[in-house]
């Protein structure tokens, strides 16, 4: 179980009714689902995928899957949690398809920005963007979306330990890139 979101952070008015209509193939209901969850789905996809185009494709695929599989949604959990799991899975599938290479040199070779305090740093957004794809996905899914390492490992077809080590490596990089290392 994910740690986050016992309550839906993106509530949908008359959710039960909308879901029920969507199950019967009512297009207006599917559009209502799309309108309610379009932005958060895109955000998850964009945070995991590297490009706007990929994120748009993933969003599209997510809602097609939602429409196809809404009958399988039992309603015993959060609707957003269910849709988000589809979005996360599609995003990871997109990463695998694109086979982005975990090129250490490429990602280490970043241009930091000079901040007001005079130190060379990247901002968090840029640092996140420059993480290797798998690391970035793990950081986002674990630290922001609240998935457990076991869940992430399962989604990625990897082990729990893999997810843990990716998260640790990602934080080491973020710490270094953001100039957050504590002086010894």
């Amino acid at each position, binding site marked *: 179980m994910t740690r986050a979101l016992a309550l839906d952070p993106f509530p949908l008015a008359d959710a039960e009714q909308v879901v029920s209509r969507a199950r019967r*193939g009512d*297009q207006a209901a*599917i*559009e209502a689902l*799309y*309108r309610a969850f*379009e*932005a*958060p789905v*895109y*955000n998850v996809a*964009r*945070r995991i995928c590297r490009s*706007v185009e990929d*994120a*748009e*494709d993933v*969003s*599209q*695929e997510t*809602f*097609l899957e939602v*429409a*196809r599989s809404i009958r399988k949604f039992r309603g015993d959990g959060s609707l957003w949690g269910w849709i988000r799991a589809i979005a996360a899975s*599609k995003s990871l*599938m*997109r990463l695998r*398809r*694109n*086979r982005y290479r975990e090129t250490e040199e490429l990602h280490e070779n970043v241009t930091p920005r000079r901040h007001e305090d005079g130190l060379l740093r990247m901002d*968090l*957004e840029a640092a*996140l963007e420059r993480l290797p794809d798998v690391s970035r996905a793990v*950081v*986002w899914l674990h*630290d*922001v979306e609240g998935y457990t390492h076991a869940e992430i490992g399962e989604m990625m077809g990897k082990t729990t330990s893999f997810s*843990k*080590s990716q*998260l*640790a*490596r990602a*934080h*080491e990089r*973020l*710490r270094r890139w*953001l100039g*957050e290392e*504590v002086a*010894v």
Partner: protein
Amino acid sequence: MTHLTMDQLLELRDGLTEPGGAAAGAHLAQCPHCQAELERLHQRVAQLKALPSLKPPRDRWPVVRSRLVKARHRRFAWGGVGGLALAASIALVILLRPAPLTSPAAAPDAQAELEAAMLESRLLEQALTQYAPDRRVTDGYTARVAAELEDRISALDQELQVIQMTPAPEGDRALLQLWQQRVGLMDALVNVHLTRASNVGL
């Protein structure tokens, strides 16, 4: 002094109990450096959570709606029983039709060509069914091209249903042309899916 690793800091943050967790906790309690690192970690994650939501650059509902309609249409047109049955029934009616009375010399060749086109169409359809494009993730461009081809095939199937009622030889010539067009479209459709698949290394 050896400080805590990032793995250990994350374990402590998440409250997980790994082997050596108690020793790590004891170290943390008396090490200002590691306490500061843990605090930085908390702050970094809080900042990650506070990042602004990225908004989709454009409304994609029209595309999603169009693909849903196409998918529904596909299910009716030739998904599973419906489509294949339609194509098969057209083929069966054609094969059972009485032989044309005119142009007897040309008839065997035309009939053979027709049967060859129908067979090729069926084989391509089987190849596509085995590939199961509906179960695969397809990019927007491929989906659009595939949907256009499917629409044309569907329209062509309707023409085939009408043309089979037309008497020979005009009907036979038109029939052969339509089946050959169907083979061309089916071939293009298979290629669209398979080419895309090979491009992404699937």
